[in-house]
């Protein structure tokens, strides 16, 4: 993974000093509330319903065990002993004291972490595929490109006061695991016929109030020009994006207003004037970036031998077998596997992880996965390089620590924002709904038989829980001070990205487990043997679901 040099350390320590001074000036009344607002946001600090919330960047989801242990220590020393994995692979603390935030940032800087640009109207953390570098379907490892773009976007002087927040995601595999079609900019690494590497560029996707699938504005951009091209996109947006209404300020609104073709034309025109500049990358720049993401010291392992061992271990252990099928993925290296640690046991807010669990992940990473772990946008954690012969031991350890729930990709592995329990934007609570649904579906065998099913919950239309792209999406709404939940079906954040359709009138919180049960029943009655939920939905449409759910309600 990327390791800081003297430049990175120098820049980050200057940032910590800058924010310490800004916090001090705010506390003495020298900086007004309005002036401090964007400054604290660009250091990750929100003021929430009950306490401030501090969001820490995890660049493209990668963490080493030292960082995990530091995150654990911060959770213990400055917070209530836990933190939260967000839907953009970041870590959030829910209970820090404002006065102590500069100290927290200083502690993070020691382990090469920060909250810079994790919030505010600027370029946010670059996200990517949690299986980068290990996935069999990978075309190009996206991480060196993520790092190059992370550095370009960090402390960018021109783009710190954009019309609105700006999110970039990069995918380097055939299957999109980074949801690039619903980002402000989505970058797909591609290889031309002659072997040249480049990017397919999507712009203007996003969730929130106005969900939009991104438009392709360029099929192939040679990789050497990526920074100039991004600069062109951002400049067009910075100068022309709407600033009169924050709900119309995202780039998706500009792209739609101009039309994707006209927007692309404006970008190309700008790019023509700045391309082939010192910001054009050279071969050696890619080599330098790639040097940080070399393969770990894999052993030469025999795949057949590993498979035989697993067969023996699963033969008389159904629980291990299920975990293996749901939580373990193929790896490009023979004899290795990638393991997802579930942060979704029933009764715990999805994505929450305690200090001792973080330390446990660090230990497991050291023991089984070259000292590295990753966060996922589905709010779980991954150990990406585990020997298959170690899986049984890892499973036992993970089970003891509480993250071996064999539910990855299933209905109970739901994505959920912090909601009205924490967030000042929320219209409704989301965590209790998640828990009620998890309790309704507490039979693991039943959930397992349902197969892949994405259920996403947001407590308001800002859509942090990505409800528009859930196979089943749930949105909390407020009606005259009462919390209701709108249900939608048919969304997807993957290659076949689509936005879910609203099923009908919203329901009270107490009805939600039964509503989801009814939807699942309709699926079960209609599915063919091989189908997962989204396939059945795409085949039979929304009507049968609607009919049954509302027949029952009336």
């Amino acid at each position, binding site marked *: 993974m990327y390791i800081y*040099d003297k*430049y990175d350390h*120098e*820049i980050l320590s*200057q*940032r910590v000093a*800058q924010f310490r001074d*800004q916090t001090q000036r705010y506390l003495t009344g020298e*900086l007004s509330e309005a*002036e401090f607002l*964007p*400054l604290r946001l660009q250091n990750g600090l929100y003021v929430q319903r009950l306490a401030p919330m501090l969001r820490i960047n995890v660049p493209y989801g990668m963490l080493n065990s030292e960082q995990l242990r530091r995150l654990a220590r911060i959770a213990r020393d400055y917070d209530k002993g836990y933190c939260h994995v967000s839907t953009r692979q970041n870590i959030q603390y829910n209970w820090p004291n404002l006065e102590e935030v500069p100290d927290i940032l200083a502690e993070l800087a020691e382990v090469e972490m920060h909250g810079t640009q994790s919030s505010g*109207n600027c370029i946010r953390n670059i996200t990517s595929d949690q299986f980068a570098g290990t996935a069999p379907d990978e075309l190009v490892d996206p991480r060196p490109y993520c790092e*190059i773009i992370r*550095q*370009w*976007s*960090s*402390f*960018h*002087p*021109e*783009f*710190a*006061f*954009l*019309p609105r927040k700006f999110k970039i995601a990069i995918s380097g595999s055939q299957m999109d695991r980074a949801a690039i079609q619903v980002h402000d900019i989505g970058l797909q690494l591609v290889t031309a016929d002659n072997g040249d590497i480049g990017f397919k560029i999507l712009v203007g996707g996003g969730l929130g109030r106005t969900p939009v699938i991104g438009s392709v504005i360029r099929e192939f951009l040679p990789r050497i020009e990526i*920074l100039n091209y991004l600069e062109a996109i951002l*400049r067009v947006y*910075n*100068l022309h994006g709407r*600033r009169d209404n924050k709900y119309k300020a995202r780039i998706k609104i500009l792209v739609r207003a101009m039309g994707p073709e006209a927007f692309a034309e404006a970008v190309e025109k700008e790019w023509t*004037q700045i391309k082939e*500049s*010192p*910001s054009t*990358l*050279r071969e*050696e*720049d890619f080599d*330098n970036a790639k040097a940080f993401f070399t393969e770990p010291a894999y052993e030469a392992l025999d795949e057949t031998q590993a498979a035989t061992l697993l067969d023996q271990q699963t033969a008389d252990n159904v629980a291990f077998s299920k975990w293996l099928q749901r939580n373990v993925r193929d790896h490009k290296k023979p004899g290795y596997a990638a393991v997802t640690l579930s942060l979704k046991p029933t009764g715990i807010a999805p994505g929450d992880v305690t200090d001792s669990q973080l330390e446990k992940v660090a230990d497991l990473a050291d023991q089984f996965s070259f000292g590295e772990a990753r966060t996922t946008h589905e709010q779980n954690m991954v150990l990406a390089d585990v020997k298959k012969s170690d899986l049984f031991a890892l499973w036992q350890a993970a089970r003891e620590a509480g993250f071996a729930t064999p539910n990855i990709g299933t209905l109970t592995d739901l994505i959920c924002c912090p909601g009205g329990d924490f967030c000042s934007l929320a219209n409704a609570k989301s965590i209790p709904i998640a828990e009620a649904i998890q309790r309704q579906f507490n039979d693991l065998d039943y959930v397992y038989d349902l197969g892949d099913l994405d259920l996403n919950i947001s407590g308001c239309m800002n859509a942090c829980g990505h409800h528009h792209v859930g196979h089943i999406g749930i949105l909390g709404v407020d009606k005259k001070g009462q919390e209701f939940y709108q249900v939608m079906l048919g969304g997807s954040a993957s290659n076949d990205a689509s936005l879910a359709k609203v099923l009908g009138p919203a329901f009270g919180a107490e009805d939600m487990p039964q509503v989801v049960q009814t939807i699942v029943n309709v699926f079960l009655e209609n599915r063919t043997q091989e189908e997962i939920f989204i396939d059945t939905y795409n085949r039979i449409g929304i009507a049968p679901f609607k009919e049954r759910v509302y027949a029952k309600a009336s």
Partner: protein
Amino acid sequence: MPKLVKDGAIIDDQWALLAKPDTDADTVEVPTGAVIIPLSVWLAQKQHLSERTDVGVWIDSDESANDLAEDAKTLPLIAVNFPAFMDGRSFSNARLLRERFGFTGELRAVGGFIRDQLCYLSRCGVNAFRFDDDSVNLEEAKKSLEDFTEFYQAGSDQPTPLFRRRTA
């Protein structure tokens, strides 16, 4: 006399700033003496104003540096306005003036920007800072120019990004 920060020093502001006209830009009378006039007035009257060496132009955040374009090189001073500090368009206009239109004179930020933006503004080519708020302690404020001394990406101040300097 009001003060401003220019090239890191606190000096008297010798320039008056002409507000946007309510009437037609071509009939507005441009006063004598050093004056910064709205872009619209410049565009309407540049024929005869271009002979003066004490006329600068200010560009509002919803106006484009492209409209000044080649005229930039002929001017002694250009100002970019911040109607509000969160309005970041002037950062782009400043860079365009320096990097595309070759402006080498005084590039001044005016309006409601705040001291915490000084370092980034300076990276975008701004070298003079005239706060709307006269109560700002300029001696304190100009410290923010030094918030960062090293940068990742290219800017008007440093055309070579760090990735090239690292390997040089």
